[in-house]
């Protein structure tokens, strides 16, 4: 379209635009044109003013406070539990999962949602079991009590036996109550953040909460797929923390799989909102330290470029390393090794 045609098209739309009677696309076309066209901008202002005058004369909204609405909203659907910033991703996923569960029909709870055998109900019991390891470490009472040496797998097994026969509503209520209690406790006692929890691997409480947000989100996607419900990807600032945790833990699983020369590094570029760049040693710090003969490379041997949400799904065991849309540079063997190792970070 020539400039004059574009001008004509927009000029004809101005009345509809001022009345908000255009499509969203047309609305943005008009807005873009108004920046550069003084004549249209002047007319648009005048027409908008007429619409605003109509609003003012007919329909001034009364002054009200949001307080009663807030109370009503809270009664219909509880907001995310207040939490310290590092636990905000977890609180957000808890609210999103609770929203999804509230919309499930009775038979949705029986659908197989993960690992070929776990139903939606089982998955929620599993989440409750693993969250319980943190709750217990924070000094909260959990039922059944955590046994010495319990890990997510053993505790899940124990709880599945007990809870499978209870109502789904009971499970949902106790899962949510425990999640709220964890957030509340962390908010009250800031010093707890630096403590340690064993979730299979020992983690700081801070990292453990990010790991719980991560797993809760992955299982939300499982349930969404099983029950045909919509879900959303984590907010950029949340997915960034999840990817950061994964990048820091990757050396442990790379080392577990293969013998890579110490000192080699992979640069991980995660693209999209919340993305960033991480340098991942191909062996954990302890190993690298022992093999002090090889100095740490300044230039990474390989680069992996992949979209951050897809990378997190790979880490969560929900994508195949061979089939993920990643761009590899440098040493292809090392780059593929990073991708192949990533799903090793996720348990059940």
């Amino acid at each position, binding site marked *: 379209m020539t400039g004059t045609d574009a001008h004509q098209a927009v000029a*004809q*739309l101005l*009345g509809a635009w001022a009345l908000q*009677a255009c499509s969203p696309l047309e609305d943005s076309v008009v807005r873009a044109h108004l920046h550069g066209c003084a004549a249209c901008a002047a007319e648009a202002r005048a027409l908008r003013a007429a619409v605003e005058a109509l609003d003012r004369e007919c329909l001034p909204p009364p002054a009200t406070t949001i307080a009663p609405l807030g109370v009503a*909203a809270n009664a219909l659907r509880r*907001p*995310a539990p207040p939490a310290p910033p590092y636990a905000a991703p977890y609180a957000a996923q808890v609210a*999103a999962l609770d929203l999804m569960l509230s919309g499930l029909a009775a038979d949705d709870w029986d659908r197989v949602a993960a690992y070929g055998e776990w139903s939606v109900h089982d998955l929620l019991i599993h989440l409750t079991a693993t969250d319980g390891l943190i709750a217990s470490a924070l000094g909260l009472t959990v039922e059944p009590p955590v046994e010495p040496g319990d890990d997510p797998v053993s505790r899940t097994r124990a709880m599945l036996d007990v809870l499978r026969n209870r109502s789904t509503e009971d499970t949902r209520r106790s899962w949510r109550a425990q999640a709220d209690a964890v957030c509340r406790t962390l908010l009250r006692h800031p010093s707890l953040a630096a403590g340690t929890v064993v979730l299979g691997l020992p983690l700081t409480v801070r990292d453990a909460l990010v790991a719980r947000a991560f797993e809760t989100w992955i299982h939300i996607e499982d349930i969404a797929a099983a029950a045909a419900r919509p879900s959303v990807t984590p907010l950029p600032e949340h997915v960034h923390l999840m990817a950061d945790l994964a990048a820091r833990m990757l050396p442990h699983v790379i080392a577990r799989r293969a013998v890579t020369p110490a000192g080699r590094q992979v640069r991980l570029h995660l693209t999209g909102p919340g993305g960033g760049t991480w340098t991942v040693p191909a062996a954990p710090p302890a190993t690298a330290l022992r093999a002090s003969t090889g100095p740490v490379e300044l230039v990474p041997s390989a680069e992996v470029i992949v979209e951050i949400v897809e990378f997190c799904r790979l880490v969560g065991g929900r994508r195949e390393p061979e089939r993920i849309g990643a761009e590899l540079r440098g040493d292809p063997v090392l780059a593929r090794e990073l991708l192949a190792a990533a799903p090793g970070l996720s348990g059940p």
Partner: protein
Amino acid sequence: MRLRDRLVFGDEAAFVDLYHRYRALVYTVAARVTRDGRAAEDITQEVFLTIWQQPFAFDPARGSLRGWLSMIAHRRAVDLVRREETQRRHASHPRLWDDAVSRGDPVGDQVSDTDTARRLEQAVRALPEPLRHAITLAYLHGRTYREVAVELGVPEGTAKSRLREGLRRLTVALHGSGQT
């Protein structure tokens, strides 16, 4: 950013922000249709509670949040008016305009006794019927110009030009009488 998703994540601050940003819009749409300030307030509450409780009811891929909120407000308001069996509103023969701006209705009462209001009201009444009909559909009933064209059985270009010309005449009435 990603306001709908923040609601999915139970973000109360996002909800408060949403309310403050769109309260006037939702109220205005509801009041246009119901001509009843209290009913419009109730509808406003309902609309915001709906998106809080069911944020997925709004799909960002299909339009703006602003458009969705006004659509829901409009639908609720129409339902209410129909439920109460007021005969004032008929989608195919929108005559609500005459009532909505007139004295004595609960909404209009709040500010109507001004010079501007009177001029505006006169200007609206003075619009030729085709222009007034088009503007009424778009303004009071939240129709897009394409829907206006279908409803009036005219080409889209005609609907666009009627909306533009109608608003132009109101603009002249607002500013052209030497009293502004």
